[in-house]
């Protein structure tokens, strides 16, 4: 599970980290030499097992944000619905937000349970070609809290990747919690061998959010995760009565577009604040099919198309074999 042994000294960087055996916390640790030699860095055997499992999955996309509540799960849900609207494609959503799983509600699957089959856990199906896995399906009541420290969360993520019967998939979308911590390191590590197409980064327009998102971009660069692009969510609110636009979350430093220009990243587009998006999520319905003519739906479709283009371009240049 975790690479930090239970009897490790405080600040142990983890036996598989680059700092293993070298950080100041390692001084005096009886295993310092072993760590410094690099021997324990042999990868977790699960990584290879996951690679085998993922052979049938064409594209793997992470949805990330340094900041919470910017709409990662909402976007993941719309992306999944949008991709699955092509009935010839098989789409799956994996929720690795262990402490705050939102996908079951957003997809109208609250109270569903996961079934065990011969080939592993069966995901829950929203539609014939759209399946979902979330820790929410393993909890018995909406009051249940998952009070887990890192290593237990990592174990769960490993199981989600290795032990779920995903079947043949065109797209696997992974929705993540905010931050740059255990869940993010684990998902990137476990999928390192299988290969991730890239990450879609979600932000809101304010600097308070962008400053966290810049950290997430650093994280992607550190772990060599390609960035598909950045989406600016909650971008402006059009009053349904007088049609005037208000910047509820003002882009005081130029918003996501300026940040993308500064960091030379693709800017995928803006999605406006629309009360109907939140309502569809609360009711577990697809916003794209509920309000197909809204400006927000048009924005989603444009962004989803860019992501599709990215993925098909990538499979042409990288080949589908891996």
């Amino acid at each position, binding site marked *: 599970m975790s690479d930090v042994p239970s009897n490790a000294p405080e600040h142990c960087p983890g036996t598989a980290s680059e700092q293993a055996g070298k950080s100041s916390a390692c001084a005096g640790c009886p295993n310092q030499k072993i760590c410094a030699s690099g021997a324990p860095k042999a990868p977790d055997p699960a990584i290879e097992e996951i690679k085998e499992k993922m052979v049938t999955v064409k594209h793997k996309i992470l949805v990330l944000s340094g900041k919470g*509540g*910017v709409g990662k799960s909402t976007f993941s849900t719309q992306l999944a619905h949008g991709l699955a609207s092509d009935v010839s494609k098989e789409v799956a959503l994996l929720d690795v937000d262990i402490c*705050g799983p939102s996908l079951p509600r957003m997809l109208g699957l609250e109270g569903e349970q996961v079934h065990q089959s011969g080939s592993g856990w069966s995901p829950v199906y929203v539609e014939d070609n759209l399946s979902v896995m979330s820790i929410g399906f393993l909890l018995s009541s909406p009051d249940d*809290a*998952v009070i887990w420290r*890192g290593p237990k969360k990592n174990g769960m993520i490993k199981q989600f990747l290795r032990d779920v019967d995903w079947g043949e998939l065109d797209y696997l979308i992974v929705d993540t919690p905010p931050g740059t*911590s255990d869940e993010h390191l684990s998902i990137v590590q476990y999928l390192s061998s299988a290969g991730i197409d890239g990450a879609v980064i979600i932000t809101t327009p304010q600097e308070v959010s962008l*400053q966290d998102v810049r950290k997430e971009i650093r994280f992607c660069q550190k772990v060599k995760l390609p960035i598909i692009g950045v989406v600016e969510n909650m971008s402006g609110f059009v009053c349904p009565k007088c049609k005037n636009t208000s910047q509820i979350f003002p882009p005081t430093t130029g918003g996501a577009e300026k940040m993308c220009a500064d960091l030379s990243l693709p800017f995928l587009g803006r999605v406006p604040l629309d009360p109907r998006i939140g309502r569809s999520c609360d009711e577990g319905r697809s916003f794209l099919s509920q309000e197909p003519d809204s400006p927000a739906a048009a924005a989603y479709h444009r962004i989803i198309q860019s992501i599709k283009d990215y993925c098909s371009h990538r499979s042409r240049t990288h080949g589908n074999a891996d």
Partner: protein
Amino acid sequence: MDLSDADQGSLAEVKHVILVLSGKGGVGKSTMTTEIALALRHAGKKVGILDVDLCGPSIPRMLCVGRPEVHQCDSGWVPVYVDSSKSLALMSIGFLLENPDDAVVWRGPKKTALIGQFVSDVAWGELDYLLVDTPPGTSDEHLSVVENLRKHKLDGAILVTTPQAVSTGDVRREITFCKKIGLRILGLVENMSGFVCPHCSECSNIFSKGGGEDLAKLTGSPFLGCVPLDPQLSSSVENGKDFIQAFPESATFAAINNIVQAVMTSLEAS
């Protein structure tokens, strides 16, 4: 007792310690922490803020303190004072990073160790209230901060939610977390509750309405009040301005002030 005073260390002269929690991210924990601190100061209290959101520290920007150097004294790290009267002190992980865009990519055990130090090694001095701003979730940071504060003192938690079911669902789990670990819930705040269009005064419930109050009833927790979506508030925290001083006539100010009065009454009575 003298002995127990010595044991309390840097929190010995802190009267009340309050956690600001939410299962959900981006509901306004840091904004609420900042505004509650400013409102307490407005009420003549000495206030400290401890920002334990290691992966996304927001408070330094919201209070416009920039990136000052943190100094050490005999009794620990000296917090950064927001004003010359030293009535509002702040300690954040943001101060310890070399580059503000650096990602803190740490797994649990390392975060746990730093939080232990944060809680016990800051020389807060005399404070009426210490507010602890947390990251979303129910994981390492929360367990560590509660474990460490318990040794000293911990009055309880203020829970922040937005009205929609997707958010109250997560906060419902956070309430279970509080009950499981025996942490008193001082009350629930419903943030981003309704938006009044500045052009036509029409109120839109962008993130629904009433979910926080319903959750408080459902779980038997005190309800502290609703705070509306207010572009003046979001631009104040963006630019590090004191909203409480700038807009004392606004409905948002009244809402925040009511919350603070309710918290002070409940803590200072007991």
